[in-house]
């Protein structure tokens, strides 16, 4: 036990070093890409072809296999950003601010995908592409929070200040997300209730591909963050010797 916690802290410490991360992640990326590709092949095959058609929604139910994973990642992404912000402010780790900055645009894009696919699905199913419903509205507000974060971070000339200010905003936003969600829920609601892991609520033939897709989206998210993080490292460490040797 003591040994494993020791190795965890060692790993945590190493993760804080841009050099270690840059060199190791180059080796991780091909593996991660391969696993993600396999998951996507299986996930897309089952969700778009081999899963049953919904008796009411027809084929449009297949949009769900993109929509739900994107929704999950949009929220997990914001949470991850806030956690990075806390780590950065408390332990002053360089890498965590970089990660925070790397996550923001990816999270925003996933949020947009979630909203877009939701609208596409809403046209045949609800007869409207937009309704001021609790989940849609809070997802939209989440997109605005991401955009506010990006706007704040990009309007400083001093990168150090930008990191710390944006980190505070990310934390304040994270506290507000459940409040926003709760408030719009009491205000107006149309979206169906949570059913993904509820027993018997969804057919196993649909649940399995959905889980594969959620896994694939998680990995894709991680890969995209790593790729952006590597660019961020290059951007910030241009003057360091190891990087010049690495790139030469």
């Amino acid at each position, binding site marked *: 036990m003591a040994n494993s916690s020791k190795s965890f802290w060692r790993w945590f410490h190493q993760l804080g070093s841009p050099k270690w991360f840059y060199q190791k992640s180059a080796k991780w990326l091909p593996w991660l890409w391969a696993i993600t590709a396999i998951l996507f092949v299986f996930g897309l095959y089952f969700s778009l072809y081999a899963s049953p058609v919904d008796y009411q929604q027809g084929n449009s139910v297949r949009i769900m296999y993109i929509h739900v994973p994107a929704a999950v990642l949009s929220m997990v992404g914001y949470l991850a950003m806030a956690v990075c912000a806390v780590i950065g402010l408390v332990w002053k780790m360089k890498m965590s601010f970089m990660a925070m900055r790397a996550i923001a645009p990816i999270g925003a894009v996933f949020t947009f995908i979630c909203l877009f696919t939701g609208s596409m699905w809403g046209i045949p199913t609800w007869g409207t592409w937009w309704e001021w419903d609790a989940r849609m509205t809070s997802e939209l507000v989440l997109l605005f929070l991401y955009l*506010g974060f990006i706007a704040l971070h990009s309007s400083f000339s001093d990168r150090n200040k930008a990191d710390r200010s944006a980190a505070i905003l990310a934390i304040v936003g994270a506290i507000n997300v459940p409040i926003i969600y709760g408030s719009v829920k009491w205000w107006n609601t149309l979206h169906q209730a949570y059913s993904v892991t509820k027993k018997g609520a969804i057919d196993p033939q649909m649940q399995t591909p959905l889980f594969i897709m959620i896994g694939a989206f998680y990995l894709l998210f991680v890969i995209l963050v790593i790729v952006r993080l590597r660019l961020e490292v290059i951007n910030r460490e241009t003057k360091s010797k190891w990087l010049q040797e690495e790139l030469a």
Partner: protein
Amino acid sequence: MFVTLLKRELMLARRNWVAILIPLFFFIMVVSLFPFAVSPEAEFLQQIAPGVIWVAALLATLLSLDLFYRGDYQDGSLEQLLIMASPTQVAFSKVLAHWLVTGLPLVLVSPLLAGLMHLNYAPDRELLDPNHTPVMMLSLLLGTPTLCLLGAVGMSLSLGASRNGMLVAVMILPLYVPILIFGSAVITASLANSGYNAQLAILGAILLFALVLTPFAIGRALKVAVS
């Protein structure tokens, strides 16, 4: 120390009293645009009144933030204040002063707007003589301090940034959503003659929550701004 800081903020505000009145005029003017834009019919105005009054209050608070932070940041007195007292104290004194000189007057002039928007309109006064004004004032009284607190977070974060007028709005408006929802819901519930205590209670809960947490965030942000 806190009293000294507060006195300083209030004295600055008094010496610059015209600037303090501007948000108040803005509040009144924005609301009075709606009868021109939509329709001057009493029944209709009454329906949109809760939303209009709340949105106007929200924008007025947002636009008045600048007065309390920008000047001190630019002439360097913010740095001196942060050396003098703890960042949380500085933050709290600024927010309290901001609310006292813009939020509170806003609550006090709101009955005028209730009149302009025909909030207490009733087709038959003999039958029904509604008075929604106290409820509206109560909702503003509980909501505007939260607007000041959250706005202060955004304002102090953007102090060191290069472009900031729109930036504060983009950052803070999403966070204002819950207050807007419950604030106008209080008045709407009162208009429908149903209970509004639950909404008022939530508005109060958000205020307490923000009162405890945001001063730290504001203080921290002010420190980052001057660093």
